[in-house]
């Protein structure tokens, strides 16, 4: 049994890695295919920010509590600080950079501007991505549902009422 086990293990490691602790991972980020060689410890968040230069996604607590790092993974909102880049080979990530452009804001982004749904703006990319994910989960959320479903995104400036108003506008 032992030689068989070694084969399985070595085959899996050798197929993807330059060394024991570095692996290659292919991601589709905002529609573009990209291939990275990363330390196994690198979170998806750090890969986006440090390897790909996509600094729109913010690092707040780095412990899954604040929501500033929210991105869409295969269309579902997740916290990119609480998952490793190497776990997402072949998967698709959307960051705030992929949500809209300066001159062509998404409806959601325009609603955040209209309702002044931020103060310092640090949490805003996470709020936007979380809201985008929420709207994929619930078609027409009520204000109460929005408050509950956005509880994974903290805003220290306390822009919550405006954030709820902005999201509500996009579903009305």
């Amino acid at each position, binding site marked *: 049994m032992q030689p*068989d*086990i*070694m084969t*399985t*293990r070595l085959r*899996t*490691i050798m197929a993807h890695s330059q060394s*024991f*602790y570095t*692996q290659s991972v292919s991601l589709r980020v905002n529609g573009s295919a990209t291939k990275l060689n990363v*330390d*196994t*410890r*690198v*979170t998806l*968040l*750090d890969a986006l920010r*440090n390897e790909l230069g996509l600094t729109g996604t913010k690092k707040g607590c*780095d*412990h*899954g509590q604040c*929501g500033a790092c*929210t991105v869409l*993974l295969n269309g*579902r*909102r*997740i*916290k990119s*600080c*609480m*998952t*490793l880049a*190497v*776990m997402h*080979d072949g998967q698709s990530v959307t960051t705030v950079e992929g949500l809209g452009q300066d001159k062509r804001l998404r409806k959601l982004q325009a609603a955040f501007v209209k309702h002044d749904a931020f103060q310092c703006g640090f949490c805003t990319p996470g709020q936007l991505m*979380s809201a985008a*994910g*929420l709207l994929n*989960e619930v078609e027409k959320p009520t204000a109460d549902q929005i*408050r*509950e*479903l*956005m*509880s*994974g*995104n903290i805003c220290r400036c306390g822009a919550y009422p405006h954030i709820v108003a902005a999201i509500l506008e996009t579903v009305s």
Partner: protein
Amino acid sequence: MPMRRLSAHCRSDSRNCVVVMQPFSYLRPTTQNDAFAALKLEPAAAVIAGGTDLLDLMKLGVTAPSQLIDINGLPLAGIELTGQSVMIGALAHMSDVAHDARIVKGFPVLSQALLASASGQLRNVATVGGNLMQRTRCPYFRDNTFPCNKRNPGSGCSAIDGFNRGSAILGTSSKCIAVHPSDMAVALVALSADVVLASRSGTRRVAVEDFYLLPGDTPQNETVLEPGELIVAVEVPASPEAKRSVYLKVRDRASFEFALVSVAAAVKMKGSIITSARFAVGGVAPRPWRTLGAETVLAGKPANVKNFAAAAAAALAGATTSRLNAFKVTLAQNAIKRALALATGVAGP
């Protein structure tokens, strides 16, 4: 690789930023046999599914596996309903289970417990198996600078004379008073669910309640999971009680918070008489706390506040409180009364 490229836990002072995840190798087996082989070869490996708790603990330096075995390539995410039960794969995401129409209809307590857990982003990633395996939120367990018998056996328990507002009041020992944090497990215990474990030598089932060990003298041993074993599924029997069930969670804020106390209640009624009742209490013990004696108090009795109170008193019998958590006895009793009122449809407290 420069340290600054890695996630580090810096606290408020970045100059003392020393905790960095230890290096680990990474494997993604695509068959259960490969996963078992990897587990056997690398005893210090950890299995990762959603990773929402494990990576947190690795960043904190509480755990440092030499290898991560990513089981997301295994086909274990299905939810299958037969006439008698629902089989939920270990890799089913919390959000998928919570929103599954068959779960919402046949096992509402399970859906409610899942939706009362964590946040939307975490529920999209966290899995059923990982939820069962999540570690306690006791602040001393999650902080390397304090003694903790669970993290470092023999070092002492900081909670017993420390900040123990969230600590357990039932099933504790002089070595550990940590609470199991899962909401889902509380619902599963009330529903008499089994966890299905697989290893190279086959599969076995354990009642979710028996899956967890009480701390005794060895709080570092938390479950009956053997080395080389994987959780592959949870099986929940269908029943009239499961259909008429509720989850009540009491916490310090309305959302995205662990329970101070929670109750999963499931009842079967004939008119206004309770023919059978089951309930489990969360937030009070090292595992979901179910007391058969407290349930028999209700069997054959009218659903009313007096009988609910008798059952609640029986469930909390033997509670041992610490300096800051004596309130949990009353809170748990009130939560039981209210959950039973909600499940039976009686106007309650």
